[in-house]
């Protein structure tokens, strides 16, 4: 893939190195040419110094042929504008913007931009680790709903998945067992040593843990 990255900070440089190591064509843009030092010697993409929404610079970066565009500077406004320029003016098919401010992240996601908010994500991830080590909300990118892993022990062996589900609060979505991962239906019976994965409301976590004696 041909990927343009705006912002060569820690995230941008790491992303650039990852993609370039995997053989993708990467162009990375930063206002400050000294930022390119972060890329090290192994990076074999292109670097361009300048403003991430400068139309001429973006053309020079080959934006008309780009498959993906990521705006990951430390400025929310710069990222929002660069991403919109890529999406609306140059019609890049995959455009991602990193936004710190949760409120702006929310508004612009609603307007159809693909937003990743590190602030929301990290806060939720750390919260997950604190309240329950086998729970993660970042998979569904929401702070209200997450995925929990439950190790099936005596008290659950032989139960049907349908008996466990609680509408709106807890839905079993996958079972990992020796043979592989299966997607259960209501009649699937739990076996010992199964790992049951379920979507669960954060607000219902306590209730679920008590009910299944976790």
């Amino acid at each position, binding site marked *: 893939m041909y990927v343009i990255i705006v912002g060569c900070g820690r995230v941008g440089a790491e992303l650039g190195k990852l993609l370039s190591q995997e053989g993708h064509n990467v162009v990375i843009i930063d206002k400050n040419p000294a930022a390119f030092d972060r890329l090290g010697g192994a990076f074999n993409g292109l670097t361009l110094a300048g403003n991430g*929404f400068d*139309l001429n610079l973006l053309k020079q970066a080959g934006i008309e042929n780009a498959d993906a565009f990521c705006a990951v500077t430390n400025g929310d406004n710069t990222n*929002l*504008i660069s991403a919109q*320029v890529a999406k609306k*003016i140059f019609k890049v098919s995959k455009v991602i913007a990193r936004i710190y401010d949760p*409120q*702006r992240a929310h508004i612009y996601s609603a*307007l159809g931009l693909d937003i990743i908010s590190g602030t929301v994500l990290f806060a939720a991830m750390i919260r997950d680790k604190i309240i329950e080590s086998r729970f993660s909300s970042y998979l569904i990118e929401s702070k209200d709903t997450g995925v929990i892993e439950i190790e099936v022990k005596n008290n659950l062996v032989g139960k049907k998945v349908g008996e466990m589900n609680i509408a709106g609060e807890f839905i079993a979505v996958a079972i990992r067992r020796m043979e592989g991962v299966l997607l259960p239906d209501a009649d699937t019976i739990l076996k010992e040593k199964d790992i049951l994965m379920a979507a669960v409301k954060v607000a219902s976590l306590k209730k679920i843990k008590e009910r299944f004696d976790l």
Partner: protein
Amino acid sequence: MTYKMYILIVGAGKVGYFLAKRLSAGGNTVGIIDKDKAVCEEVARQLEALVINGDGCDPRILEEGGVARSDVIAAVTGDDEDNLIICQLAKERFKVTRTVGRVNNPDNEHTFSELGVDVPIDATKIIAKIIEEEVSFSDFVNLMSFKRGKLAIVRVDLPDDSPAIEKEVKDVRLPPDSVLVSIVRGEEVIVPKGDTVLKSGDDIIAITAVGNEPQLLNLLVGKL
């Protein structure tokens, strides 16, 4: 009685402050947002206006400034990114119908229009244009463009050797979408009719579609 508006201005530098002063002198209600606390205090002392100290890119600050009830928002900070985001938030989130954004770097004007700013104002370009016109000795001056640059009001001084001199207006074959609005002859302002005769030294004000300016010039001045 003319309709009085509520106008929210973000950025209380020279432009924002002067704008606020003019608008409130005209009887409108004005709200001002600026990041700088000292600037806000000064503005609050000078003007009858709601003054909010904060970042206009923050939706909560815009709300405090009464964005939801504003008829117009004018983002006139010195930062193009901020101005663009403020206009977008006002329009998309708070349904403000008219957004005016100051463009600091002329390269960004196109981006402002593409990303939904109703009226991008590029002060640098406007000033450069005025200066350019003032220093040029041309007989042809573009007074203003409107309808997003599709129509222009122009002023033409008829020189002695103009091919239009001593002709009646109806015999001057104007290019399409062009009309003579008035003739300034000395102290006199004439509204041209078909039988008005053009004289050397006449100052002609005309409206024309922008692409037809050269034809109009050719007709009235006799050169391109």
